[in-house]
């Protein structure tokens, strides 16, 4: 049924293309082809948009695609424009990767400045290097079956439908989910085992590919392209329309393409200056940004609002149980130190988390608990000392590799990407192939909402539980939970503690629980480690450790009472 629903839109689009090709006059089909070309380029802009990046050089990539098609046409490479356009897209990809490289360090407006600079530089280069065939007055060749504007419209329509299906399918893969996750939080993306660099670069590569395809299509449509087709200001206008229409959605991209082509045409026919179109687009983008959503996003949100997510069934009463003590050492930390300038955030921390246990890590605010979590999961490159997981040294490994090696963590702040559904998020964060039954099992275990609920609709507490569920679903060796009960009611915290007790037996993972709620710690943990001023000051069974006077002193003045 899902598949049938998925196929309905492309089939409808194909039907419209067929009917239009049969009845609409050629002039309008030529215009519609232009709209489709813009739509493909916008679709590419949507790919980087999904990953939360602004690209202002889309037409520069398109120029690469157009140049490639012109080149191949001059060489008369076999395969006709169908192969050439594909080659144009592929040729643009390396450029996307190159422009994407700065995005590994640059974000937001800095990235926008770089891409704008690239667009301007590409302008200069494109003007300097001629498009092939232009000198010799050779137009881009089209095979007999694509010779007329009518036939070419059908071809462009097919390309768009394929590109749209591709974008939609890609959005459902882990790569697509990674883009949305990167947009929300790079740290959380890496912590769930996905390379942020790969996510960003793949978004840029996909974007450049689509832009290249669009450029190639344009070259075939017009027959002869020059630098004027790919000017910086055109890239900016494309960006503005993408913001206005919402290019992350296939429908939004198409809507944007139609706007870019038909609005000026309508103005021209009405005897109004076509420049009004850009005024309109500028105002539309400002309006979209002030609403916080594009036209398509607003529409999608409204559609979703009509189908509110069902409330999860109440969890079965828990029985709790004794926290397991665990067996041999699993996670071994030796002499871990982190310094920020002259301040030591962690000093020679030694810590062993045994296999199959729930261990607590407590300490007053600023004791270094979160620094320890960051150092363990690989966020602090300057950390010294050794971390070993099940005999494997983790030192020097980047965050996503540590996660893949079996060390998972959750965050104190809400880091669940809002752009996804519960199911998509769980499958993405699992970072392995999971069956629907597995997903439902872990959902039921922690009482998470159904798979088709949207993360954006969940409250903070539910998101925290979802994050824990995702970490468990990845089947790690050890999972570090950074205050998972923040945002939960006290009774819910205790229920969560009972669940955590079951985790080692059920999911085969040890738990390192960082928590302020000492009731929860007592209930869940077999052992507790106390951190103060970056040093381990005590460790042992909870009752014993919490009774020690130096531990009480460490907490004195803090908001947590040792009762």
């Amino acid at each position, binding site marked *: 049924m899902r598949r049938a629903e998925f196929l309905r839109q492309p089939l409808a689009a194909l039907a419209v293309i067929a009917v239009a090709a049969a009845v609409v006059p050629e002039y309008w089909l030529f215009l519609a082809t232009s709209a489709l070309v813009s739509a493909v380029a916008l679709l590419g802009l949507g790919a980087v948009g999904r990953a939360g990046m602004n690209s202002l050089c889309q037409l520069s990539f398109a120029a690469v695609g157009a140049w490639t098609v012109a080149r191949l046409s001059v060489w008369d490479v076999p395969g006709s424009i169908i192969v050439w356009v594909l080659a144009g897209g592929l040729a643009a990809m390396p450029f996307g990767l190159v422009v994407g490289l700065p995005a590994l360090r640059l974000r937001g407006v800095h990235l926008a*400045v770089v891409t704008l600079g690239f667009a301007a530089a590409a302008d*200069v280069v494109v003007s300097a290097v001629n498009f092939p065939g232009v000198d010799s007055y050779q137009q881009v060749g089209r095979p007999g079956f694509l010779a007329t504007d009518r036939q070419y419209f059908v071809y462009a329509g097919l390309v768009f439908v394929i590109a749209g299906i591709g974008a939609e399918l890609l959005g459902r893969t882990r790569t697509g989910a990674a883009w949305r996750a990167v947009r929300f939080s790079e740290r959380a993306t890496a912590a769930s085992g996905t390379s942020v660099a790969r996510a960003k670069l793949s978004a840029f590569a996909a974007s450049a590919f689509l832009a290249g395809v669009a450029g190639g299509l344009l070259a075939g449509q017009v027959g002869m392209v020059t630098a004027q087709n790919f000017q910086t200001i055109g890239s*900016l206008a494309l960006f503005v329309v993408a913001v206005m229409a919402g290019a992350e959605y296939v429908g939004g991209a198409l809507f944007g393409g139609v706007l870019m082509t038909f609005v000026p045409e309508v103005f021209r026919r009405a005897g109004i200056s076509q*420049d*009004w179109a850009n005024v309109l687009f*500028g105002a539309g*983008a400002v309006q979209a940004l002030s609403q916080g959503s594009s036209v398509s996003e607003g529409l999608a949100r409204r559609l979703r609002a009509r189908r509110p997510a069902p409330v999860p069934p109440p969890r079965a009463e828990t029985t709790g149980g004794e926290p397991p003590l665990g067996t041999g050492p699993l996670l071994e930390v030796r002499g871990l130190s982190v310094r920020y300038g002259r301040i030591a955030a962690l000093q020679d921390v030694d810590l062993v988390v045994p296999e199959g246990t729930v261990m607590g890590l407590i300490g007053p605010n600023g004791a270094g608990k979160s620094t320890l979590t960051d150092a363990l999961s690989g966020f602090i490159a300057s950390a010294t000392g050794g971390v070993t997981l099940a005999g494997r040294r983790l030192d020097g490994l980047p965050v996503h590799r540590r996660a893949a090696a079996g060390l998972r963590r959750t965050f104190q702040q809400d880091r669940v990407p809002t752009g996804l559904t519960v199911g998509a998020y769980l499958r993405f964060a699992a970072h392995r192939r999971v069956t629907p039954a597995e997903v439902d099992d872990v959902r039921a275990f922690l009482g998470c909402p159904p798979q088709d609920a949207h993360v954006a609709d969940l409250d903070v507490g539910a998101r925290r539980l979802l994050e824990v569920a995702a970490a468990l679903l990845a089947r790690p060796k050890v999972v570090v939970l950074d205050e998972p009960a923040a945002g939960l009611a006290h009774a819910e915290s205790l229920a969560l503690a009972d669940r955590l007790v079951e985790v080692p037996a059920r999911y085969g993972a040890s738990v390192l629980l960082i928590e302020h709620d000492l009731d929860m710690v007592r209930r869940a943990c077999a052992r507790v480690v106390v951190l103060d001023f970056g040093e381990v000051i005590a460790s042992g069974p909870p009752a014993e450790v919490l009774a020690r006077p130096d531990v009480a002193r460490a907490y004195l003045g803090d908001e947590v009472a040792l009762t």
Partner: protein
Amino acid sequence: MLEGAIAGLAGGGAYAALGLCLTLMFRLVRVVNFAQVAIGVIGVYTMAAAAGHGWPYGLAALAGLLAAALVAAALGWVMGRWFGEAGADQRSAISIAFLVGLLAVSYLAFGTHPRRMPGEFGGSLFTVDGITITQASAVCVLGSAVVAGAAWLVLTRTVLGLRLRALSERPTTAELHAIPSRLLGAGMWAVTGLLSAAVLLVVAPQQTSDQTSLALMAIPACTAALVGGFRSLGLTVAGGLGLGALQGALAHVGELAQYRDAVPFLAILAILIWSQRREVWDAAR
């Protein structure tokens, strides 16, 4: 080579002054204003249109400055009204929409025909050793230094400067302390808009450009601002002048001359990657 570098200082001074506008805007109203130069374009074309109607140059220039300030204030008001609490990224994205819209408005208002700009600083100032210093480059270089100095004085020595800095940190908090944030924000836009128009009044008559290529001077201006990290006024001026001189010098290197306008991009890339090399993660924790 040296001759070229000195000839490039006219453009460099303009980059510096426009870069100062961008730096001030980023520091004080949290926006990389891609539309900064487009606002100036409105001003200088208003001047040209007025002069075309037979207005004396001084009056026409004044009208141009006023028009730019008004347009900028209006945009600043929009920004403050709807995006008061938005982050720098979003505000900058909006400025791109402003840029596209303003250019279209400028085409609508002033036509798309190339226009000759009347100007005051056409001639040469003096010639030393065969190297001529033009009036325009002298005005631009000195002007950008003066603007940087004045801005520094206002920001560090006056109550207005203190208020502006408070406003830039926390607009809502500043408003609670009875600082009229929207008014000051719009005022800031107006002042930098006026400044951009003034720069273009000097530069545009010396150059042959349409609205778009003038407005895209925002890119080298951005480069200048980046040299100063969108913070330092002195470094921004140095960056602008350096960039102009480099472009001018490159025009004399035969093989590279064609690509000299790509220099800002390479500079942008180098500066950003160096200054942001430690920004491995998006959030502090």
